[in-house]
């Protein structure tokens, strides 16, 4: 498999004709750019492990409430339309692909392709949120399908449905918050990439944001069947 040489000396620090990524030099407390990159990556993975644990709290609540009130979870799940959930899954999968592809393009110094991929990633994130708000949160909230004490849906059939809506809003809500955070980070990448900050020898931030974005996708891969399909 192809690899790239990240061991390039930093060129003229103030030479404007040299792209930013070529002028970048790793921190003086690192032996090599590789050391810096690997340390950053371990840091990101540690952060991602806390993210997995955060989401696992919701998966834990889902599992246990499902064991206790299977009929309420089944009734609640039947209110959701798998077509919106499925469409959002496809949207997120595509954005994950374009994110991975953007990193690959930067590694090969194909800057305009990297930009296109990053922009598609951001647009997919926006589309995901738009679908979620317009077709799912909005109508459901208006009908009174709300979590816990806010619940006000008169046509419910199971006593514990408010708990289902609690699980639904908290898990998809925290996930959507991560999508918003991801959009901000990807926007930052688009801006910095346009300035020429990333190239074959330096793309640490892109790698980190990419990993974060894949985790957001990963969580949705599990949320989709649990909320929309399993009945």
């Amino acid at each position, binding site marked *: 498999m192809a690899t790239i040489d*990240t061991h390039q000396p930093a060129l003229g620090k103030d030479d404007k004709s040299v792209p930013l990524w070529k002028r970048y030099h790793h921190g003086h407390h690192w032996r090599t750019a590789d050391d810096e990159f690997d340390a950053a990556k371990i840091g990101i993975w540690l952060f991602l492990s806390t993210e997995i644990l955060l989401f696992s709290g919701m998966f834990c609540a889902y599992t246990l409430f499902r064991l206790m009130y299977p009929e309420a979870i089944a009734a609640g799940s039947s209110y959701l339309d798998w077509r919106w959930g499925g469409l959002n899954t496809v949207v997120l999968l595509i954005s994950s692909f374009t994110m991975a592809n953007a990193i690959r393009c930067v*590694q090969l110094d194909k800057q305009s392709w990297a930009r296109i991929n990053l922009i598609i990633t951001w647009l997919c994130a926006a589309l995901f949120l738009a679908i979620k708000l317009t077709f799912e949160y909005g109508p459901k909230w208006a009908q009174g399908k709300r979590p816990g004490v806010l619940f006000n849906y008169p046509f419910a059939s199971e006593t514990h449905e408010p708990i289902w809506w*609690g699980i639904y809003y908290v898990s998809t809500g925290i996930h959507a918050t991560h999508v918003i955070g991801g959009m901000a980070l990807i926007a930052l990448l688009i801006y910095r990439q346009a300035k020429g900050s990333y190239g074959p020898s330096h793309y640490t931030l892109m790698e980190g944001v990419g990993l974060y974005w894949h985790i957001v996708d990963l969580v949705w891969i599990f949320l989709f069947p649990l909320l929309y399909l399993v*009945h």
Partner: protein
Amino acid sequence: MSHAQAHNQPHAYDPSDPHGFHEEGHHGHVIVPWQILLGVLLALLAFTVLTVFQAQFEKYAAHEWGWQIPGWVNVVLAMGIACIKGTLVVMYFMQLRYDKGLNVILLLFTLFAVWLFIMFTAIDLNNRGHITDWRAGEITSGGTGVGVRREGVTGPLIIVAKDEYIKDHGEAEYEHELHAHHATHGGQTISTAQASRSREGLTPGLFSTGVWEHLGDDHDAHGDAHTDGAHAEEADHSASEEHADENHDAGGH
């Protein structure tokens, strides 16, 4: 660390280097070919279609051929497919396949922690009542309206919502709307032989506190659903009795 040992290390010890060792050479970063990335995306999309299909298939099989596929098959298949998809994302998009072993260990340990988290919470919930009975029911409030501080809440929230609607719009309007609403999500809210809405669940009878016990009596009594509701209730009662016996035996009381 002695010098003799240090010389056996792959990187020579260097007293002038503040880190002690020279980095000899460096590994490159892997560039994953776009063909692999695209292949993984296509596989993920295919698995998405497959998981949606298998969820629909259960209903179809019951309706068309009268096959009764147990509910757990659906859960196991859906989660199995999700695990395959997750592994693909982690290995190729997140490049763990080409990455350092330390990151892999980090992820696996995290998943182990998730397993511990869910298992121990489940064990705790399942056994609370075995020591002191009153602890068993603690978690059941919430949806039932017990302990909910909202004006006018004197019972389960779903009944409160229903009563408020009838007060504002009248009984006839409610019946009319009820059918319209249920039609929008499959036209069926109560378990039938054709649906996988298992009344037993995996741990039946866990935390039945007896609060709002007779809730179903007046609530299920509406329109067409009435007969189904009665059946479902009977099934529920017999099922929970059976399982109560099982639990009793298993518990060794």
